[in-house]
């Protein structure tokens, strides 16, 4: 069984291995044991509500229960820009027009922005190569929306995600080459790494503060602004299907887009339903296709668990859980669980979920 649960200390090795495998693309999880351990500690404090809600970082592990190993990770940062300053460029337009001369020129313009400050971010999605496919990525990503919905008071109404920008096989990014490199005396990967380590004062110190008129940059740089790395395209598609949209902000280094939505508009949140648990002895069919599976999550913060089950387990008011699944989810007969389609437009009755207060 593949099970979502809070990330814990014993996941450090697996996490380090995944971070190393991911390479330079994932700056929020650098392959640095000390830093990763700090993140695990913070996640532990977050799920156990031992830190300020605004400082929380919820990290979810995808565990293969057969081995007890974490094979994937995903996260929610409760608020960004509180400890450090959170920077984006806003892709804006400057219009200059002279009626007298009949000239009307639109200049795309990058303006330094801190506008995501205090907003909740979904982040840090990693999945071991051998577990890719079969809806595991979907489970890792979507389980967060059920969590967000159940614990809304911990998060902002708006949720965003930063998408990795374009780079070539050597890790070069045309926007960095044309813009960042002129101001930062370092390689893109180094700037990205420093930023990922949470050291952002160098950005305040070195970053150009005045707007950048894109017509002055080469077309190679202009063309990647707001574009995602090929590896990230599936993640972007998934988020778009969930209702996330490009909000006009891009990464200051690589120009990758920020997508955002409001919790209420997230498809998984809109489509989630509740069911009462019943326990069954019938074993679960193993090879059910992704389109016929649903995500099932318990309603605990501290002991959050989620997995997937075939749609056939779902009845009008109840869901039948085999004993081992119920144990894994830490629920008993009579408890409520939340369900959501695993895949876009998956089969579930359109009925909104009202959490019992």
């Amino acid at each position, binding site marked *: 069984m593949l099970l979502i649960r809070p990330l814990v200390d014993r996941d450090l090795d697996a996490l380090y291995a995944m971070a190393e495998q991911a390479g330079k693309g994932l700056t929020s999880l650098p392959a640095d044991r000390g830093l990763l351990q700090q993140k695990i500690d913070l996640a532990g404090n977050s799920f156990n509500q031992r830190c300020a809600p605004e400082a929380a970082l919820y990290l979810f592990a995808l565990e293969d229960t057969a081995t007890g190993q974490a094979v994937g990770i995903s996260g929610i940062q409760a608020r960004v820009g509180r400890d450090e300053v959170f920077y984006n460029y806003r892709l804006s337009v400057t219009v200059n027009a002279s009626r007298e001369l009949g000239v009307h020129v639109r200049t795309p313009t990058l303006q330094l922005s801190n506008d995501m400050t205090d907003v909740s971010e979904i982040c840090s999605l990693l999945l071991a190569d051998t577990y890719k496919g079969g809806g595991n990525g979907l489970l890792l990503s979507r389980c967060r929306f059920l969590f967000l919905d159940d614990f809304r008071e911990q998060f902002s109404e708006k949720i965003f995600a930063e998408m990795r920008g374009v780079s070539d096989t050597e890790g070069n990014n045309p926007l960095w080459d044309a813009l960042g490199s002129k101001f930062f005396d370092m390689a893109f990967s180094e700037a990205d790494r420093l930023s990922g380590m949470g050291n952002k004062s160098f950005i305040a110190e070195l970053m150009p503060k*005045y707007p950048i*008129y894109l017509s002055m940059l080469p077309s190679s740089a202009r063309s990647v602004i707001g574009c995602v790395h090929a590896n990230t395209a599936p993640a972007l598609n998934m988020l778009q299907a969930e209702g996330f949209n490009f909000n006009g902000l891009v990464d200051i280094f690589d120009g990758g887009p920020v997508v955002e939505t409001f919790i209420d508009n997230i498809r998984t949140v809109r489509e989630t339903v509740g069911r009462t648990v019943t326990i069954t002895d019938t074993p679960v069919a193993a090879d059910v296709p992704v389109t016929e599976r649903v995500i099932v999550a318990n309603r605990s913060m501290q002991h959050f668990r989620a997995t997937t089950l075939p749609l056939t387990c779902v009845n009008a008011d109840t869901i039948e859980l085999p004993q081992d699944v119920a144990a894994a989810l830490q629920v008993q007969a009579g408890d409520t669980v939340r369900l959501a389609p695993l895949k876009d437009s998956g089969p579930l009755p359109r009925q909104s979920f009202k959490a019992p207060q």
Partner: protein
Amino acid sequence: MWLVRPVTAEDIEPILTFAETHTRALPSTLPHEREALAGRIKESCAAFAGEHGAKHLARFLFVLEHVDSHEIKGVAGIDARAGNGQPFYNYRRDELIHASHELGISRRVEALYPSHSLTDCTLLCALVIVEELRGTQAFELLSRARLLFIAGHREWFAARTVVELQGIQHSDGSVPFWDSLGRHFFNMDFATADRHSAQLSKTFIAELMPPNPIYVTLLSEAAQQALGVAHPATAGNLQLLQREGFGAGPYVDIFDGGPVLEARTDSLHSVAVSRRKILRGSADADGPLWLLAAGEGSHFRCTLTPVGEMLDAALKVPIDTWRRLGGDTGDSVRGLPL
């Protein structure tokens, strides 16, 4: 022999021909259209007549005339107040230091700031001369006659005087600074922008110019190299102006990036050193060459002349110098050795 005098209404035909021939590359220096030129000449006549209004918005145009042929071989101007009542646009170069103490990085970042600081300075402008007279004494006469005029009418002019030197333009007409910056926002070629700048109110600049500072490092290599550099053709003029005390400050032209030279008006060599003298006759046509000006306002004349003898309060010059200056013995003149 050469004479510099205020332009008159009768000069319009020769100047039109002259402008068409000699200011093709830089139409902003002189209007090419009859009506615009006539207006400019009329403005100048009013300026020389002292009709300035409260704000001293006077625009003077001088011509360089060959004394015998009466041909006009050059034109030069002074705007008493740069901008002529509108903002006078420049970029001001300034450096910021982007330094990270922790990372031990320090980088000088140059930016161009839109500035109107030179508005209302006195502006030397519209200097054009026929090619064969470039670098001759006639050229020097034409350029410096303006400074003697300023010295003689000091109250009409501002405390600071500036000159814009033409920036780098390639032989194909391309202007690297413009192509890297202005072209993106004005959506026209340099020549068109230059012409509009001469003919229209500055509203179009306010409307089309990028409103924020520009990072120099984002300009093309060629534009960065052209920044603050004068066109080689202006080398002679540059030297002449430097001898007068002009120096390049932080300002450059918004269109071609050419340098703007600045000086305190009172410190200009021709203003500070020139003296009032009484005109006396001399039979002798020899002697050191002087720049000599006579006449107030519309009667202003300036020429080069040998000075036979210099007395404490008087100068002895050949009689034909008198004639050229429209003066007579006993007149007050102003001059200095060339």
